[in-house]
């Protein structure tokens, strides 16, 4: 047995070394520990820096009176690292494990780091990750969803197929069958169930949402989203969130209502509240984002300004909210799945599944909206409400006709966006007005369902408080933007 032991030595102990700042912090902290533990002092120091509650309890009990000095050393060590060393330690351990694996693995005829790993590092490093994110938004959202989906596909479906062929035929048929104008308007009037409900849902929203879901599924299947979570973790900490909040925020770009429910995965009530508020305020849902991108297609500067203003609102309001709601930010660490080439079948299945889900959800609501508007027109309520919104839109420098879009926007932001799209198609908005209306509408509460979900998750008072902040805030931002553009003499 002894000869076998000599022949088969045990595994070489592996202890990763960290970057100098972290190593110095670990050594200093280990030096403050005076008692013996089952783990080495270095391991205890590392766990303390990672905020391990169990080890903290053990150290508190073992060190006794000396614990305050240890706690002070932990706080001092964490201060230059933004209050948490967990992510840094995880990342450096991953790098050490990769390096160990590289030593042990032999590749035939290939040297250097695989392309996927290099790309993975580029997407998580702030210096390269942020420009990559900008490229993803530009090509994925603006070029593909906005120009191709909102321009080319909508042009073919809404203008050519529905506008030139189906709708004139359907209008003629319905008006022939129903001679009473007030009743035929329900189906084929300006806001009729066919001419507005079916046409918008099928020919306007559907191609835009379809291209958005396709782009989103490609990103999802490539493994980019967890890297995005790592990339924005530090920024999110500044606004009281952890990188894990990327999950509800990213899902919010699909549907804000369900994303609000997903905020339950966040660890603290404070984080859940901040994420819910930001979802309601600054994250446009798939339908809206698609129509916005389509609206701004061809106005690349306005698109950039819209993205910039919304990102600014997200960060500033998030930061202020986190100051108003003091508390500890949750830590976030996750194992990164490999970056991979998206599989065509996966992308197709996800896109089709999402399109089916969206269509089933939105189609009945579009029809219901048409009926409500028709009733509102018959009774005169619609006109009164539109008139009441006149001063609000004029304050933002917008034409009175845009009040209709904002009225729709109170019920669902994507209805409002579709209304703006219609207005823009008829030349009713110049470049500045387009930007202002798009920004103001993006800030609106997403829909009635979202309001009910906030009520369910955060309580009625909080839901009302959020709505009372959000709607006036949208008008304030729109008015300020109008003033700034006018003062600077900007003509978009």
């Amino acid at each position, binding site marked *: 047995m002894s000869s076998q032991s000599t022949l088969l030595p045990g595994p070489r102990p592996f202890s990763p070394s960290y970057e100098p700042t972290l190593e110095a912090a670990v050594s200093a902290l280990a030096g403050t520990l005076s008692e013996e533990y089952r783990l080495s002092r270095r391991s205890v120091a590392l766990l303390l820096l990672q905020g391990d509650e169990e080890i903290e309890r053990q150290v508190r009990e073992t060190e006794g009176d000396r614990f305050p000095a240890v706690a002070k050393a932990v706080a001092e060590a964490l201060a230059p690292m933004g209050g948490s060393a967990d992510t840094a330690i995880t990342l450096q351990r991953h790098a050490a494990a990769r390096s160990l694996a590289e030593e042990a693995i032999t590749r035939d005829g290939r040297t250097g780091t695989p392309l996927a790993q290099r790309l993975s590092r580029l997407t998580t490093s702030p210096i390269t990750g942020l420009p990559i994110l900008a490229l993803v938004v530009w090509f994925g959202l603006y070029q593909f969803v906005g120009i191709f989906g909102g321009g080319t596909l909508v042009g073919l479906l809404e203008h050519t197929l529905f506008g030139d062929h189906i709708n004139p035929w359907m209008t003629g048929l319905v008006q022939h069958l129903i001679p009473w104008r007030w009743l035929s308007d329900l189906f084929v009037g300006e806001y009729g169930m066919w001419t507005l409900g079916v046409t918008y849902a099928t020919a306007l929203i559907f191609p835009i949402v379809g291209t958005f879901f396709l782009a989103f599924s490609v990103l999802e299947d490539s493994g980019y989203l967890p890297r995005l979570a790592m990339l924005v973790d530090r920024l999110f900490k500044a606004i009281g969130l952890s990188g894990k909040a990327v999950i509800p925020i990213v899902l919010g770009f699909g549907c804000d209502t369900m994303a609000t429910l997903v905020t339950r995965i966040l660890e603290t009530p404070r984080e859940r509240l901040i994420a819910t508020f930001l979802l309601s305020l600054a994250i446009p849902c798939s339908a809206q984002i698609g129509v916005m991108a389509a609206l701004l297609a061809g106005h690349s500067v306005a698109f950039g300004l819209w993205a910039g203003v919304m990102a600014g609102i997200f960060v500033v309001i998030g930061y202020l909210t986190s100051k108003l709601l003091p508390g500890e930010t949750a830590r976030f660490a996750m194992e990164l799945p490999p970056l991979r080439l998206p599989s065509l079948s996966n992308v197709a299945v996800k896109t089709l*599944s999402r399109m089916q889900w969206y269509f089933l959800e939105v189609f009945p609501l579009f029809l219901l909206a048409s009926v409500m508007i028709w009733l509102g027109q018959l009774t005169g309520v619609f006109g009164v409400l539109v008139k009441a919104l006149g001063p609000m839109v004029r304050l933002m420098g917008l034409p009175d006709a845009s009040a209709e879009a904002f009225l729709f926007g109170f019920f669902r932001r994507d209805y409002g966006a579709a209304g703006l799209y219609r207005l823009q198609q008829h030349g009713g908005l110049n470049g500045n007005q387009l930007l202002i209306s798009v920004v103001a509408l993006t800030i609106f509460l997403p829909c009635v369902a979202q309001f009910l979900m906030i009520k369910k998750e955060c309580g009625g008072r909080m839901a009302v408080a959020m709505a009372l902040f959000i709607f006036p805030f949208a008008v304030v931002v729109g008015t300020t933007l109008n003033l700034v553009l006018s003062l600077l003499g900007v003509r978009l």
Partner: protein
Amino acid sequence: MSVAKGTVVRCCFCDYEFDEEEGVKACGACTLFGGCRKVKCPKCGYEMPEMPKLLKRILSWRRS
């Protein structure tokens, strides 16, 4: 939400593989009209659309 047993789903966010039924159970809190037709990863909470029944049938038909 009826789900065929044994359908394995891979989470798009954390790569965790789980039975679709397990994901649906994790999503039980949803009260949206008739359910949201999404599957929630029990590990990280990410939500993915449930595969439409027609697509499931086509894929199982192709496999057999």
